[in-house]
């Protein structure tokens, strides 16, 4: 038994903090930053959940003070030679430039022999189904948690684990909640796994642009679609993300969406492109750090979907997509469900 592997699995699903989780800690720091004469740090004790909620209310005052502090500090910054902090990007190109810098400042995950790249995502997708009794066509927006383990070594299987967590729409739970669904993939093809495919990409902007054009052609929408997929996969290789964002900034048709929300409910700022047929796709970034949060596709009109079971309509404003929660290295695959689907992908 590999003790480091078991230890790595222990509570590994603990997610990174959201902006909301860090509200008070950030406010405390900003208050401290705004008062350089203070010699002792403020302390915010949040030992118990009950006290936490009390403090959340009390924190309104703290936040107000912190916000004032931010404004004062920003004004000081404006007087200096550096760019003001917190100035929102004025265009999609500026946002992508900042996102490229943020990605360039992150480390690539490089799995060693025997290791796996492990990513956690939250996914929102449409479910179109039919009530078996009434034959009524039903549509729901399903939110699911997904995990994926991809090996560094060739010849090893990789695992996709999914569990639907909630759904909005008139679909009975038993039709969307199948419990934990494991799918184990096997393939002898060297290019099948995302990590291996990613590692074959260059990280210089011109190299990435040329390779992308070789795969997708030079039509901006086709390049965008290919690029969006690569960005989602390259969260483990931010050096590639950085180049991809710079390539994206040169595509005709991109625009800035100041207020976007990813599939995990995190607010962000996005770069979008109209895909036609009533759909707009977006790359969403954190408003402060410009790190990539995820992607989504938004219906800009009611959209009809034709399936063998009938025609379904998804209303204007419906958004589907994927939010990246964590990416790390794992020593091995977790225990796979006995009911796992096993798929062998032929070359």
């Amino acid at each position: 038994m590999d003790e480091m592997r078991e230890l790595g699995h222990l509570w590994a699903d603990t997610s990174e903090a959201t902006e909301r989780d860090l509200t008070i800690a950030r406010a405390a720091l900003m208050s401290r930053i705004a008062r350089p004469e203070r010699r002792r740090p403020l302390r915010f004790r949040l030992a118990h959940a009950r006290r936490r909620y009390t403090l959340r209310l009390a924190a309104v005052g703290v936040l107000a003070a912190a916000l004032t502090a931010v404004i004062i500090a920003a004004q000081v910054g404006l007087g200096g030679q550096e760019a003001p902090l917190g100035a929102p990007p004025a265009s999609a190109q500026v946002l992508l430039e900042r996102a490229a810098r943020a990605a360039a400042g992150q480390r690539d995950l490089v799995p060693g022999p025997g290791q796996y790249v492990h990513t956690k995502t939250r996914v929102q997708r449409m479910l179109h189904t039919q009530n078996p009794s009434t034959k009524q066509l039903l549509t729901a927006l399903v939110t699911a948690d997904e995990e994926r383990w991809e090996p560094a070594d060739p010849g090893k299987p990789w695992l996709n684990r999914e569990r639907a967590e909630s759904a909005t729409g008139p679909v009975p739970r038993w039709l969307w909640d199948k419990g934990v669904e494991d799918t184990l993939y096997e393939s002898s093809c060297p290019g099948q796994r995302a990590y291996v495919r990613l590692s074959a990409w260059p990280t210089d902007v011109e190299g990435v642009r040329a390779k992308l054009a070789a795969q997708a052609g030079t039509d901006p929408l086709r390049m965008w679609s290919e690029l969006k997929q690569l960005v989602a996969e390259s969260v483990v290789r931010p050096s590639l993300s950085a180049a991809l964002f710079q390539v994206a900034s040169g595509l005709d048709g991109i625009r800035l969406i100041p207020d976007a929300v990813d599939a995990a409910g995190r607010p962000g700022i996005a770069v979008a492109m109209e895909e036609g047929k009533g759909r707009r796709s977006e790359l969403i970034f954190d408003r402060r750090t410009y790190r990539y949060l995820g992607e989504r596709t938004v219906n800009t009109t009611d959209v009809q979907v034709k399936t063998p079971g009938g025609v379904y309509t998804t209303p204007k404003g419906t958004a589907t997509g994927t939010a990246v929660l964590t990416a790390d290295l794992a020593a091995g695959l977790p225990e796979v469900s006995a009911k796992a689907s096993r798929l062998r992908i032929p070359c």
Partner: protein
Amino acid sequence: MAEPAIAEAADDDLIRRSLRDPEAFATVFDRHAPALHRYAARRLGRDSAEDVVSETFLSAFEHRHRYRPGQADARPWLYGIASNVIGKRRRRELARYRAYARGGLDPAEISGARVEDGVGTLAVNRPLVAALAGLRAGDRDTLLLVAWVGLSYEEVAVALDIPIGTVRSRLNRARNKIRQALEGTDHG
């Protein structure tokens, strides 16, 4: 030559800049607080994690003039401070581990995890957590900085301000104890 814009600056640039422009330190927070919160939550529970993050960054800000130039990545420094902050809550950490090992604490409170559902997982995790509780504090810090944060031996040495040989010996000792606990499970 102009200094790089905030978003692209390395941690040591930001910390150096924060000596005259304190707000630059907020970028260090934004960059590292989410992951540090996760680490603290795994050790102390989510309820204490924000407290640890807050105290760590306030302390880091107070002592930023001591930051060693040339260290582009601030994680060893920040997690070293966090280790001290967590160390002040050692009783809470141990109580939490022991409660979990006894099964007296709802696992969902610790992780909200589906992976905890499996009886096999619990059978591994309980002795594992009990062994964690039995480690020396320094050994536990060393082990978890490697296992959960992914720091290299050199980075752990910087974080805990100990020689690299001590990192190796602590890690060996901790791993042996964990392994023995898990093997006990296998035979049990």
